[in-house]
């Protein structure tokens, strides 16, 4: 009998230095060992080990049924994941790039996210859709978008975006154990970043933001790769005596309103940073939330720093210019603190 789905509290075991990709693999592996209902399905995940090597080696350990390589049929495989989840399995379906999610979004939104409600609570859809987004590799406009905002606007879906190897492991385990469909969005430039990762079972509950750096002068709310940029920026700002608090949302849905609001009420200043284009981005949600709930606590207008409104260009120098860099965060933070 498979164990309960209840997310265990983070355990403080020994840690290993792992790449983000290795941390994800460890979570997949441990969850597959723990629960026979868990399996992975996607393109190039078998012999090739996945476009970013997350599933490397798992074919040998778990075989072709549980590391199920598929043809290029995005809506077919996500839909099959929905059907498998509805009937008792816990599929982890990989969409190679979030730019391709549009091909499968009907099954994610109209089926996975809504089935439980439409059926009056009869169903559970424990489906994880693992994908990755973001620019920085010269893959141009169809392989570099940041589309998390689409998925946050869907009732019934959860959205997770880890920034560090430890969070990647703990959040993926939680996503797999969760009984709801989860969009698990990685970043293509994080796979080769390293960090300490607790060994063994490690589960981080969904919906809890992480204060990656404490500070008193300004709250920077961000997620995914921009967390690393924000932490670098905070270092530079500290040299001029500006102490920025950096909040990594980790889960966009459920959203940890309390952590955001408590921080802003202390620092009295907000900067939201994301790689996605500004218009319609999730930064609007955060800035609006803070403006509504903490208006009188703010000493400055809430600000957003986001991607330039353009498809992602190919040429390296142009590509770098369209998403927020460390220096941009520093500049805007200075403006806010004044």
């Amino acid at each position: 009998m498979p164990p309960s789905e209840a997310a265990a509290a983070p355990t403080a075991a020994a840690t290993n230095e792992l790449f983000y990709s290795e941390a994800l693999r460890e979570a997949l592996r441990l969850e597959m060992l723990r629960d026979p209902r868990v399996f992975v399905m996607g393109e190039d995940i078998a012999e090739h080990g996945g476009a970013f090597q997350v599933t490397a080696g798992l074919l040998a350990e778990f075989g072709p049924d549980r590391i199920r390589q598929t043809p290029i049929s995005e809506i077919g495989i996500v839909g099959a994941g929905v059907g498998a989840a509805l009937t008792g399995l816990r599929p982890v379906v990989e969409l190679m790039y979030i730019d391709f999610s549009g091909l499968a979004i009907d099954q994610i939104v109209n089926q996975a996210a809504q089935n439980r409600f439409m059926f009056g609570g009869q169903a559970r859809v424990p489906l994880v859709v693992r994908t990755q987004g973001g620019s920085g590799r010269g893959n141009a406009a169809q392989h570099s978008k940041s589309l998390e905002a689409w998925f946050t606007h869907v009732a019934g879906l959860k959205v997770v975006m880890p920034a560090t190897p430890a969070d990647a492991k703990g959040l993926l385990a939680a996503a797999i154990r969760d009984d709801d469909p989860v969009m698990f969005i990685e970043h293509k430039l994080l796979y080769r970043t390293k960090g300490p990762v607790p060994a063994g079972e490690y589960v981080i509950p969904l919906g809890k933001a992480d204060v990656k750096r404490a500070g008193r002068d300004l709250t920077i709310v961000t997620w995914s790769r921009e967390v690393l940029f924000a932490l670098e920026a905070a270092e530079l700002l500290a040299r001029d005596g500006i102490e920025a608090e950096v909040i990594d949302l980790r889960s966009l849905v459920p959203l940890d309103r309390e952590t955001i609001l408590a921080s802003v009420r202390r620092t009295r200043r907000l900067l939201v940073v994301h790689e996605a284009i500004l218009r319609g981005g999730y930064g609007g949600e955060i800035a609006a939330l803070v403006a509504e709930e903490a208006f009188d606590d703010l000493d400055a207008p809430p600000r957003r720093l986001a991607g330039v409104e353009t498809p992602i260009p190919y040429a390296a120098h142009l590509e770098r210019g369209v998403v927020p860099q460390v220096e941009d965060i520093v500049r805007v933070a200075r403006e806010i603190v004044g």
Partner: protein
Amino acid sequence: MTIDRADALELYRVMRTIRRFEQRSTTLFGENKIWGTIHSYAGEEAIAAGVCAHLRDDDWITSTHRGHGHCIAKRADLGKMFAELLGRETGYCRGRGGSMHIADTSKGNLGANGIVGGGIPIATGAALTAKQLGSDQVAVSFFGDGAANQGTFHESLNLAAIWKLPVVYVCENNQYAESLPAARAFAVDDIASRAIGYGMPGIHVDGRDVRLVHAAAGEAIALARAGGGPTLIVAEAYRHEGHYYGDPQQYRTKAEIESWRATFDPITNARAWLTSDGIASDAELDAIDGAVDDEMERAIAWAETGPIASPITPEEIYATQ
């Protein structure tokens, strides 16, 4: 595959129940007791009845916007179905889903679907579950001729073929996709010919004769259960009513409808078979009709006394809070 008397009468009863359900939901809609939209399955009863006769409660189906027939054939409770149409808390979906989303997971019905073609990959995934668990369960996906031109049809049939999944795809060609005649939606006469390109058997059957549907489905489901992989069955039928309640039907003539109804009615067809083969007398069949009609009224009465749908709570939207 010969059909014994009990099974033959059960097939008739199911078809007659579906027809009656559609008649009564139509009148209830006319009385403004049903909200939204309903799609009548009248004329296609032999397909759901003939296929589901081979399914166990732990086998799965995915259904469509025109799903009442599949739901009934998969042995759903009529009262809970009507209660759903009436927006009651006692309905299958507690009034959240309505006609287009009735599901009965206790009987393996993974739901009607408002997205044309949306159920095809889901049934394929259910079959994948059977394969992964090594069980002998089978999944059946019902969908229309229109759905056969959706990308989900293509991707799903290919996945099922390469993985030899225990799934049967039942395409109900009722000659129309809303206002579009199948003749204008396909450049081939036989939709089943598409099975060739996926490497699975494709069977074309006259959906008016429940015996033929029953035989074709029996083979396909047995093949799937035995690990022999998927089959595409295309059953010809005719939609007796408009696409939805209130459809002006400018796209077809009264004459066409009349002539097809006369020649293409699975229930008259079944009566002729049952009486001419001496399986049952008209009187016995009339008795079944009477019992069906009584059961229907009891179901409606029960549904109408149910409480209205209760307020929405968070756990209905997210299972893990």
